């Protein structure tokens, strides 16, 4: 890789950018009118700066040309998938070039090698749908999997309900092709230095993924589902700790608090227990039915010992309805307040009961509307602050989010499980990561993106010292 100095100094050639891009790529792939550009300033959580131009590449060569043109013009580059992300990662923090991958949708399944080769714009669900006729699946299943793209999933290292047993997006990557900040193309596998691993979850700050080779697996033959509800959130967390300590390895173990359950029930009307303080939805799976049912039994007993009421799904349709409920949480919350601040903390399972109780108390004391849900089997919680900017103070919202982040840090947890740091949590990184480690992260950033052109303002906080 060519490591060069910062992009050309002096005033960026903004007017020339769209013209150059159009000359290089043709008219159909470049968006330059205000109406077109306005629509590339947001993700699912935040509105950022209106880009100077947008490119819709159809090949790696198009991406290379776009990166070089942006470099020439001295403007930053933000990669974008379906922009369903929840940390502001795809919302440009500054004016610049947005590269939107939604037209790079080539997908090839190799059943013998159990691989999918996907361009970044492939919608996540489509990988599994294309693999299914060959008896294969792609396990990472973020709640947005009908919408979100492989490129975005890799950028955020997205997880989903299956991540407890089956891992997150990054665990399924065998090889990556990416374009660096200079416009050079690289092909990485996972040996030697795991540079692919570094790119995964880097939120487009180190390079732009243009193709991924993904590992496919065979689906489990049997799956069993149960739902349990509890009077109080801490009890649900106790059940989770106990079930896993007892030896169960559920394929999915999800948690919703009362506000989530009610938001979803308002939307779907499928008879969820509105009065419950918390609900768990659990799947066990495997190829041996006896083991699968034994694991469900372990979970059931742990739930009952924590004073939960248990309902086993009668059949596949029943189970699908319960999971549809969980998948709908995130957007259904929009019905309560128009905006939300989304947290994505991960804490050790042993401290889950204390953490969820403490966060619930913080929410109640703040006077803001806070809800909790998440992949609790992983210790991954999503406390969300729902607010109306016309009534609630943004400072109060930010303050509460910061308090939540501090709870995670205090209990030995981290700031992001799957949604990334983006711009929403960049300020909390200062406390979450020690200065030496932060300096090492900055060294990596500088090595791969010396001009600081790739998705500036995301992931890494500006160090307080002047050595940045």
């Amino acid at each position, binding site marked *: 890789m060519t490591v060069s100095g910062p992009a050309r100094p002096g005033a960026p050639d903004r007017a020339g950018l769209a013209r150059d891009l159009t000359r290089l790529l043709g008219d159909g792939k470049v968006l330059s009118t205000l109406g077109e550009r306005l629509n590339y300033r947001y993700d699912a959580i935040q509105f950022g700066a209106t880009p100077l131009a947008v490119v819709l590449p159809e090949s790696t060569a198009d991406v290379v040309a776009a990166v070089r043109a942006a470099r020439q013009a001295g403007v930053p580059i933000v990669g974008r998938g379906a922009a369903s992300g929840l940390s502001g990662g795809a919302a440009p923090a500054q004016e610049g070039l947005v590269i939107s991958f939604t037209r790079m949708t080539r997908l090839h399944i190799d059943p013998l090698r159990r691989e999918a080769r996907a361009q970044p714009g492939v919608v996540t669900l489509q990988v599994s749908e294309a693999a299914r006729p060959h008896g294969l699946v792609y396990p990472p299943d973020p709640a947005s999997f009908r919408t979100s793209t492989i490129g975005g999933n890799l950028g955020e290292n997205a997880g989903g309900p299956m991540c407890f047993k089956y891992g997150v997006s990054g665990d399924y990557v065998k090889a990556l092709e990416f374009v660096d900040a200079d416009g050079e193309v690289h092909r990485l596998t996972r040996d030697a230095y795991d540079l692919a691993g570094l790119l995964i979850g880097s939120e487009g700050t180190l390079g732009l993924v243009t193709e991924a080779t993904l590992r496919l697996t065979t689906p489990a033959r049997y799956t069993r589902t149960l739902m349990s509800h509890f009077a109080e959130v801490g009890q649900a967390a106790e059940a989770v700790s106990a079930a896993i300590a007892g030896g169960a390895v559920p394929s999915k173990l999800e948690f919703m608090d009362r506000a989530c359950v009610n938001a979803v029930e308002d939307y779907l009307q499928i008879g969820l227990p509105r009065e419950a303080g918390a609900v768990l939805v659990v799947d066990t799976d495997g190829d041996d039915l006896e083991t699968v049912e034994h694991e469900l039994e372990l979970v059931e007993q742990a739930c009952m010992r924590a004073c939960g009421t248990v309902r086993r799904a009668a059949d596949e349709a029943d189970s699908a309805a319960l999971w549809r409920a969980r998948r709908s949480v995130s*957007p259904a919350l*929009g019905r309560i307040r128009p905006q939300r601040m989304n947290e994505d903390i991960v804490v050790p399972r042993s401290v889950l009961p204390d953490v969820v109780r403490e966060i619930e108390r913080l929410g109640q004391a703040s006077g803001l509307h806070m809800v909790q849900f998440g992949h609790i089997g992983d210790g991954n919680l999503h406390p969300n602050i729902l607010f109306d900017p016309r009534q609630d103070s943004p400072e109060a919202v930010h303050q509460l989010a910061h308090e939540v982040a501090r709870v995670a840090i205090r209990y030995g947890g981290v700031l992001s499980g799957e949604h990334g740091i983006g711009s929403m949590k960049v300020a909390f990184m200062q406390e979450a990561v020690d200065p030496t480690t932060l300096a090492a992260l900055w060294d990596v950033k500088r090595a791969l993106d010396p001009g600081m052109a790739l998705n500036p303002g995301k992931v890494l906080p500006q160090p307080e010292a002047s050595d940045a």
Partner: protein
Amino acid sequence: MNNDIAAQHPDAQGQLMAHAVDACVHCGFCLPACPTYTLLGDEMDSPRGRIVLMKSVLEGELPLLDAAPHLDRCLGCLGCVTACPSGVPYGELISGFRGWAEPQRRRPVIQRLTRSAVLTMLPRPALFRAGATVGKYAKPLAPLLPQALRAPLDLLPSAVQPAQPLPAFTPAHGPKRGRVAFLEGCAQQVLTPNFNAATVRVLSRNGIEVVVPPGQGCCGAAAMHTGARPLALQQARRNLDAFDPAGVDAILSNAAGCGAGLKEYPMLLAGEPEEGQARRLASKVQDISVYLAELSAAGGLEPFMPTTRPLRVAYHDACHLAHAQGVKAEPRALIRSIPGVELLDIPEGDLCCGSAGTYNIEQPDLAGRLGDRKARNVLSVRPDIVVSGNVGCHTQLQSHLTRLGSPVRVMHTIELLDLAYRGEL
């Protein structure tokens, strides 16, 4: 999504639009449900993107002209409404917006003439019939005409069927079980007159009296969805006068678009003196399939004759049934109840066929690509018959299946039931 639309547009339509924008959390769940996003892959041609565009125009941040091409490409299929977990009433936004924007548009002459010709002819069956007859002879000239005139010509049937006027009153056959008023629909009286005849036969056979109020006219959906609000209001008021919801169990439509149009009267007439009357009428409106399914649940339907051989029947969800009216289960249940019929679902079933009212005329390229995709999806399940509940879809399916050389028969749900009663399946 924050907005200050209501401050700048303080009337009832402004409030509706502001509310719709407010409800959107830009999560992007609508993206895969949108046919134009599926084809074009850009944000401006997605529901979330169009909401941002409309908001920007209504707030004065963006000139209407910049947004118009993308808003014009919206089919109004409302697939996004079904997919939206936040309950954004997108239909209210796009209809309200088009009604507000249209008077400010300066369209090219040919476009203006085509629009006004379509909106004039569609609601008048006699005129439409005459036009179709003329059009039949003009078809060979099509290659010489500009695209804007070729598209409407393509839509006209090559053979115009004789009119089958409905009696103002059809008595129930056997013991009376109910009484309904029926909306005839305009284009389908010319294009597919058998839909209405079959509807009356099936209802009467099941003990239902059918009244066809004489003063009725076009539901106004085409006008409303293309931004011709004054015309839509005029057409709605005419129907409010013609239909008396108090005297019947239900006001039935067998065209998904028209049924949805009637159900949208409260939105269209929001802030007008007739708003209450519009609500009363809308609350009685049902699709024929819903009425029959309820009748079936409450005491059964007259038994169908079994088919002469096993039949594979694919059901196509018309957008204005599935998305606008939320009707998916009822037509399927009816089809399944015919002995000898195997019901098939079509892949990408939620994706619009591209017909969408006047869309074929205004966006022929996108409409054609969607029609082709739909026809190929239909053929992939190897049906003998494909059934839908809307005349627009019917015409689109027919034309694209024919183009692909397929012999699959295209029918309305009610025709299938009618034929099953007659033992002709």
